[in-house]
């Protein structure tokens, strides 16, 4: 097992190096650099940078160096000093910016992930054990509806419903009065009244697919002889289903844990933008739009690294969870 993990980790290293380089290239793709973006932004509010000032800024930020030199400076700082650089846009170290928002992001993402699972697994199991029943069809249709509705549209419509019909505060995670208030029961309740929309939006999108996966897996597993064996031991249907086939059918879910790692980190960008969630996703989007090089680059790098790690984690978890692979 350790050999397996070690080998997989070793194989990821070249991928990571390549990925870091690609991350750097992606943010260099658009014409112009941070200074032009910065100048444009100043111009928007009636401030102008002269050519000389622009040149000075470029010199200051080392934007005139060859790309490889810039890359090398960037990556060595990250690897050897844990220094992700400085966000020119926010005037703050990248790590602080990301760190600030990571807590809530992780909370919302994992909550929605758990929520998704709490929906998907029982519904998938139900649909499989009662294949072609009324509720199976109903869940199927709802699942596809959830899958077929663009997230931003759903978020917008839910927001509208909350606003126009339920007359509740929507958008963000807190009403203004609780925004900076210390944690209290009221604040938690306020959070919950805001949280349902993002949870519903994120969960419908994710659950739909997982329900299908779970259902299909369960149908496969339910037909296998060991299920019959379990029944033949006198176990009740509930005991049989939840102890045996569900346990096997969950394997693909376990591999999605790893895959969700980058998503946990970035949250769902679009939903977060629409719902004004204080997560890292909108920060990423903004960083890309303003070509905030170090912030955007760090984001892409972290996302990519998380993807690679996620794959690794999935493989390991799967191996660990499924004895057939573990002892293979």
């Amino acid at each position, binding site marked *: 097992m350790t050999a397996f993990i070690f080998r997989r980790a070793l*194989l990821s290293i070249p*991928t990571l190096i*390549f*990925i870091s380089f*690609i*991350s750097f290239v*992606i*943010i260099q*793709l*658009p*014409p112009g650099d941070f200074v032009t973006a910065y100048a444009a932004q100043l111009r928007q509010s009636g401030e102008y940078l002269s050519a000389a000032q622009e040149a000075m800024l470029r010199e200051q930020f080392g934007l005139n160096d060859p790309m490889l030199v810039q890359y090398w400076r960037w990556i060595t700082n990250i690897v050897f000093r844990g220094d992700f650089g400085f966000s020119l846009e926010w005037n703050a170290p990248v790590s602080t910016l990301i760190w600030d928002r990571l807590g809530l992001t992780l909370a919302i993402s994992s909550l929605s992930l758990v929520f998704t699972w709490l929906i998907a697994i029982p519904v998938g199991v139900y649909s499989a054990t009662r294949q072609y029943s009324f509720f199976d069809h109903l869940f*199927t*249709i709802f699942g*596809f*509806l959830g*899958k*077929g*509705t*663009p*997230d*931003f*549209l759903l978020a*917008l*419509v839910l*927001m*509208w419903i909350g*606003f*126009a019909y339920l007359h509740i505060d929507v958008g963000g995670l807190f009403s203004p009065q609780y925004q900076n208030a210390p944690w209290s029961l009221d604040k938690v309740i306020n959070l919950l009244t805001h949280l349902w929309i993002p949870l519903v939006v994120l969960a419908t999108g994710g659950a739909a697919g997982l329900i*299908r996966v779970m259902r299909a897996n369960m149908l496969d597993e339910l037909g296998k002889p060991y299920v019959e064996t379990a029944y033949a031991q006198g176990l009740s249907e509930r005991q049989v289903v939840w102890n045996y086939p569900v346990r096997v059918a969950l394997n693909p879910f376990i591999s999605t844990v790893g895959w969700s790692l*980058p998503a946990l980190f*970035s949250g769902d*960008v*679009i939903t977060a933008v629409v719902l004004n969630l204080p997560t890292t996703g909108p920060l*990423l*989007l903004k960083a*890309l*739009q303003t070509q905030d090089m170090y912030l*955007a680059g760090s*984001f*892409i790098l972290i*996302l*990519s*690294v998380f*993807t*690679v790690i996620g*794959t690794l984690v999935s493989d390991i978890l799967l191996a660990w969870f499924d004895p057939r692979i573990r002892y293979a």
Partner: protein
Amino acid sequence: MTDQALPAPAAADAAKENLYTARPWQLVWRRFRKHVLAVVSLWFLIILALSALFAEFVAPYDPFKFERLRTLAPPTAIHIFHEGRFVGPFVYGLERERDADTARVTFTEDRETVLPIQFLYRGHSYSFFGLFQSDLHLFGVDDRREQVNLLGTDNLGRDVFSRLMHGARVTLSAGLVGVIFAFVLGLALGSISGYFGGWIDGAIQRLMEFIRSIPTIPLWMGLAAALPIAWDPIIVYVIITLILALIGWTHLARVVRGQFFAIRNEDYVLAARLAGASEYRIITRHMLPAMTSYIIAALTLAVPEMILGETALSFLGLGLRPPVVSWGVLLQDAQNLRSISLAPWLLSPGVAVVLTVLAFNFLGDGLRDAADPYGQ
């Protein structure tokens, strides 16, 4: 002696013989037909595709034509009885008024003007893909000023239904192009990976892992900004779609590879080899046909992803942009509270997206279920 094994000639059981000699796709079709939702979806998509293809004919109005006196008109109510008298489907004229205070435009029905809906109506002329000129439309009302707007109009007085039909053409074809490109790549690399295995497989797997770890949104944003501005937005979009397909193929490749691994070990493949079949023949005659239905199902399920991708990118301002008419672009118009509160009919492209995605999903589901006629 061997004649022993001959079954007694069955009583002319045509149905059964039919089943026995049916081509594989016929069996797929038979199983598919049992899937009511999938069949309905198929029809829906066929009608949609035809409408998109013949958008000029189906759409009563020019999707780019402004009507200054019909901005944000709600969907036209279609009546049948006028003052208790049967007239057949008709619409009333509209009277427009702008609220000086809130600048809202309101419409009231002018109960005097009765405009019967005409089918195969001669309206504005158009050129069908540059092939021929025509002015024939599926329906319309014969009036210089009044219109029938099934889904209302937008803030420039353009007919939303007509735009929806034209948008379908762009959205569906752009989605297909991307999917097909991803499909070609995925099929090629997946089958190479699955057929040869060994270090080639290892290399391709590594490549896939690498490609999958590139985050999409940043890449898209970078590309969108990097392409020359004077290029036609549709071409830019298609190019970006193609480049994204360079990433999107991994999913299909994994499916194909898995299938190849499974089928490679089937005895009938070995049998073909022992019959002296070349690798090309084995792949094309034995392995691929076994996968076609899976692949078609996978494709069917990939198209809605592309459609949703288009709308999401439009939302981020990275996809198609006006004046191109696509569903994403139309939805962009509607994705604000202003539209939801003042002109909810502008959300109809959203409904179209949901229905289409739904239909593709049902179709894909049906195909997947029917894919293996020899499954049970």
